[in-house]
């Protein structure tokens, strides 16, 4: 049966990857990267640039999930040997396909604006001697992976949504994430921050440029944390699996599905909690 999921995931993934709205969102990301100041580039490449494509993917996959009900195809599909679980898992696989597209775009954008000091380093490029961080490999993967998570979120929400009256439920989590990121960006990370897909752990404490006597500094970016991004990447994978299990539970509630659901909940909680423990504490410049 796995073969059916893979084959259908390939078909669905191809459809999402050909969707012009997804490419429009990716083009806007590319434009955003093109015009970004060096100080902002780190955020975009380390995941935040994928917010809009992820939002579009969520809506596209949500619509694909509702397609059979919208078109009245359920009567036919209900008479086929592979049931709704296969269709749901295939849409999750399609989110992964979109993630691969997003990763390719991320790599292309990275090549276009390659950090002069290399990956996972800081770079003295500004006249004031401010160190600019560049994303490491895990952080580069977090944008596409967060896109997968939000895409699967669209599948899960649409699977459980009884009618389109609840459509705002698809939009609000994404908007909350985007707005929350905007508000939170520059604040010191707290334990709750690790639960967000785009909480990639590159800001905590004060920015090294914001020392006494320095010009006004609205951002308080300390550099980047070399530890949490890998943990956060694992957290995102677990979150994607959890959301997929939530979608599958709409159609199948056997022991295997509940076990997978339970394991993914445990993994999500453990990996989120672990980040709050293991992250590198910021030591301000000149401290001690």
């Amino acid at each position, binding site marked *: 049966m796995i073969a059916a999921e893979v*084959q259908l995931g390939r078909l669905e993934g191809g459809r999402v990857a050909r969707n012009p709205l997804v490419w429009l969102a990716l083009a806007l990301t590319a434009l955003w990267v093109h015009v970004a100041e060096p100080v902002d580039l780190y955020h975009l490449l380390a995941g935040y640039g994928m917010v809009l494509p992820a939002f579009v993917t969520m809506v596209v996959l949500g619509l694909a999930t509702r397609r059979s009900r919208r078109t009245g195809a359920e009567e036919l599909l209900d*008479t086929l040997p592979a049931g709704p679980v296969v269709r749901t898992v295939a849409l999750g696989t399609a989110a992964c396909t979109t993630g691969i597209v997003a990763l390719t775009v991320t790599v292309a954008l990275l090549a276009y604006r390659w950090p002069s000091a290399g990956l996972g380093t800081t770079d003295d490029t500004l006249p004031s001697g401010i160190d600019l961080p560049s994303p490491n490999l895990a952080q580069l993967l977090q944008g596409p992976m967060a896109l997968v998570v939000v895409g699967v979120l669209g599948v899960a929400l649409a699977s459980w949504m009884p009618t389109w009256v609840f459509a705002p439920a698809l939009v609000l989590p994404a908007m909350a994430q985007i707005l929350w990121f905007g508000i939170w960006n520059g604040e010191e990370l707290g334990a709750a921050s690790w639960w967000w897909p785009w909480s990639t752990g590159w800001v905590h404490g004060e920015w090294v440029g914001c020392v006494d006597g320095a010009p006004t500094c609205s951002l308080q970016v300390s550099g980047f944390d070399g530890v949490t991004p890998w943990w956060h990447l694992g957290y995102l994978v677990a979150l994607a699996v959890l959301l997929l299990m939530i979608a599958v539970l709409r159609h199948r509630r056997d022991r295997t599905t509940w076990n997978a659901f339970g394991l993914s909940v445990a993994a999500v909680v453990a990996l989120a909690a672990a980040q709050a423990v293991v992250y590198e504490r910021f030591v301000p410049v000149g401290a001690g």
Partner: protein
Amino acid sequence: MDPIVSTRGLAKDYGRSPALRSIDLELGPGITGFLGPNGAGKTTLLRILATALEPSAGSVRILGHDPTDPRARIEIRRRLGYVPQELGLYATFSAFDFVDYVAILKEHVDRRARHDEVRRVLDEVDLGDVRSKAIRKLSGGMRRRVALAQALLGDPPLLVLDEPTVGLDPEQRVRFRQLVSRHAERRCVVLSTHVTEDVEALCDRVVVLHDGAVVFDATPAELAALAAGRVWVADLADDGAHVSWRTGEGRYRMVGEPPPDADLIAPTVQDGYLLLGGGIAEGSAA
């Protein structure tokens, strides 16, 4: 030889409304047409045969399996082709992609072989040239053929077609008859229709449903024979006729109890069906 479909005392209720009452049927290879007015229970019966619906009472065996058993139901679905009344096609998919989508859900997982099969069934319904076109850009008749193409995937031994000829032009209808009759040589085809000409031209057997029960079950010729001696033409309509209509030749064609000097003509399946509906031939019903 075991029948491909058999039902015993099959009944289906929607709440307190009975849709089917104690249906006993045995269907083998060949084409069986279900006729009946709207609400007679045709679609309900076909949905049960297609495993889309479970009966409220009675037993059903399809392809040697009991569809109420979940594992057996999957076995049936692997060997079943179904065209529902409401097609529910994905308008933004191309014809090829939609049939490919269904083929995957029918567990045709070898990509190359599946694509060959998809091309074969699309060619069989004359859609090979437009297979890349989005379904929303196809005519109603073409959409029907896309639905038929997906049902033909894997050459299933049981084909269940609910109103398959709606929206087909005369040429397509003839093509459809050729296709289905060829398919039915070794297989069981069950179809519901309002078009008595299709039954006459295509079916080995006709079952008339009325109010959820079988009121006639025999060959189309036997259904037509019910009206033998009860169809006539005249220059003026006869108030005593069960039904009458003016033909293109300007004369009235009537079905019912003819007057003694009536100009009798050969009856059709439609005449027999109309008489059944009017209850005139009640005594002849199976």
